[in-house]
């Protein structure tokens, strides 16, 4: 057991899997000698060897295509796309190939690849280093999409993703790599050391894909969140004094529907939160599922709190990024309903 921030926890997951399974290998832009722009692969090439963790050309489509070929051979490649904003050149490979290979080949070939990518805002990264593209992966049958919110989950989910025989998009909320962020840009940033989820076992363990975590139990309203927004939601609950239940979805595909329904049927109110822009975002799916299955339990309309429907802005980041105030307002609206 050690105290780890999220980058260390991810590094530890990769380290454990490289040591454990000779068929695991890592490649991506700058991930080799340098250890990745966020240091997630720091030291792995040196420790495990050049062919286990190496640099790739700046070619996201090529990275994912070769990973799929390796997966078909029997390896378990873990590739890094340096920023989720740059994953789009690989989208065809993910949608047309990785997601469908098992299906279209009648189960002859499959794609046990993991695509890691730092995503989300809050770092003043502008349009090209801040976006949250999870909905475009959730929409694709055959892909799994995982988003951890803390070091313990990050390691356990990443190991589960690598061991999974289906393609997994593993989106890492980079704003909370080094410490939880509650959406308050005006306050000093905390570190993971003060957070219980920074206690991370050194060895192998998994957090199963498709199991949500109730990070705060409550009775007044259910808040559904993932990634950085889990911490923003907890902060909103603390500040407002509302007895909300906060559920960290951890993976959006597979989705832990039972956990959602169980909570909303009890609280009778629901707020859905994500960083990504609102229209046709994953919150729309969550909202529909809750409406379809909890309608007669609901006391108020479901609220969605999300990024505005603009490209991710630079100077206006604090106006764009979902903070506690908007979540508090949404919870209060459901309580009046």
């Amino acid at each position, binding site marked *: 057991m050690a105290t780890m921030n999220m980058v260390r926890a991810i590094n530890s997951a990769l380290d454990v899997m490289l040591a454990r399974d000779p068929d695991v*290998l890592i490649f991506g832009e700058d991930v080799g000698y340098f250890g990745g722009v966020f240091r997630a692969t720091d030291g792995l090439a040196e420790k495990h060897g050049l*062919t286990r963790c190496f640099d*790739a*050309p700046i*070619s996201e*489509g*090529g990275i994912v*295509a*070769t*990973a*799929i*070929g*390796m*997966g*078909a*051979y*029997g*390896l378990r*490649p873990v590739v890094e796309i340096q920023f989720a904003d740059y994953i789009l*050149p690989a989208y*065809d*490979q993910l949608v*047309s*190939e990785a997601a*469908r*290979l*098992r*299906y*279209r*080949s*009648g*189960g*002859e*070939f*499959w794609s046990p690849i993991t695509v890691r990518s730092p995503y989300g805002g809050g770092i003043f990264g502008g349009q090209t280093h801040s976006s949250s593209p999870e909905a475009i992966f959730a929409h694709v*049958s*055959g892909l*799994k999409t995982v988003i951890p919110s803390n070091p313990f989950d990050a390691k356990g989910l990443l190991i589960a993703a690598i061991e*999974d*025989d*289906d393609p997994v998009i593993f989106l890492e909320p980079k704003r909370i790599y080094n410490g939880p962020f509650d959406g308050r840009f005006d306050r000093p940033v905390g570190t993971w050391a003060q957070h219980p989820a920074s206690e991370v076992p050194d060895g192998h363990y998994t957090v199963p894909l*498709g199991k949500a975590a109730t990070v705060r139990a409550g009775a007044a309203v259910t808040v559904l969140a993932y990634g950085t927004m889990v911490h923003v939601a907890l902060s909103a609950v603390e500040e407002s004094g509302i007895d909300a239940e906060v559920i960290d979805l951890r993976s959006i*595909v*597979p*989705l832990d*529907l039972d956990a959602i329904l169980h909570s909303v049927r009890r609280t009778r109110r629901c707020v859905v939160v994500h960083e990504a822009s609102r229209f046709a975002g994953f919150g729309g799916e969550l909202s529909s599922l809750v409406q379809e299955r909890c309608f007669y339990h609901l006391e108020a309309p479901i609220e969605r709190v999300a990024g505005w429907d603009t490209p991710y802005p630079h100077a206006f980041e604090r106006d764009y990024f979902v903070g506690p105030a908007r979540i508090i307002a949404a919870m209060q609206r459901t309580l009046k309903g």
Partner: protein
Amino acid sequence: MSNRPRLTLHVPVPKVRPGDRPDFSHVAVPAADAMRRPDVLDAEPGLRDMPYGLIRVLDEGGRAVGAWNPRLDPALLRRGLRAMVLTRAFDTRMFQAHRQGKTSFFMTSTGEEALGAATSMVLGREDMCFPTYRIVSYLMARDYPLLDMVNQIYSNAADPLKGRQLPILYSAREYGFYSLSGNVGSRFGHAVGWAMASAYKGDDRIAISFIGEGTTAEGDFHEALTFASVYRAPVILCITNNQWAISSFQGIAGGEETTFAARAIGYGLPGLRVDGNDFLAVHAATQWAAERARSNGGATLIEFVTYRAAGHSTSDDPGRYRPADEAAHWPLGDPVLRLKAHLVACGEWSEQQHEALESECREAVRAAAKQGEAVGTLGQSKPDTREMFEDVYKQPDWRIVEQRRELGC
């Protein structure tokens, strides 16, 4: 304004269109023994003349000549001929089946049969082919069951791909034949990754992949070449330049000013340009590249110059965009007739034997088609509807389970 003439936009157009006389004067056909055969481990800088020549073995008299003559056993040549004749018989029958409403779609390999047949005989079962939809002769050369193909084309209850794929987009892992897709080009990089995996594991398996000349314009092609070059992947990357991408002539893909094989030079890869209708040349060039790959010499790009003698698919009429009799004027001839002529010239084949072979292949195809039709043609028979919901994931999640239940299967 300067005195220079105004800028003009160049849009390539083929020399001839429907109603014109076919004109292949731009296709230079050097003598069969014109090309040198470098050592398989020669460094790339010494190979830069190769992409601009044309490797040929069969001369006008059907004799095998020159440095590239692979000196193959006649029995092997007869097997190659059978794979090609079988492919043509299959294509003829199944094209008809489409016209009779027995399936939704079909594509033939007419004129390109040497490519799959010869490469298939160079690579082993442990190797992997990442095909295009016109490389079906690769499977024919490996005695893949015709009935499985027919059932796949009819998407019937015995379809090995369980009704999920468009006709002819086969997958045959046991035969070293990777899952096809209608997205042209998107498996080219898979071949490189697969080959990298073999090298990573220290195995001796190699990959071969095909892409049309039209699809070389996709990023997939250039990404694959980059990775193949950077990591010296043991892979043979093949361009089938059949002159036509549906209705677009090869100039639209960038073939007007240079050859497709010459794309290799910018990547530091050997580029071979090969008469794709010459079974012996295809075999010899593939053998060269395979030997180089297995010897840790890395990837080779091969352009097979051929001609798509039929339409793109059952959905287009080539008479709308090229002269109807163009195929008959193709200067590299017909791959089946050329191999046949060679075997006859060697005293290893006769007209009677050829007729018997054609008849035997027609009969084999007829029998398989009948058997497949007994199971059912498209719409008459289909796999269990449950199969629609299988293999989306290794284990279905609640959505799949609920939706399967909703449909009542």
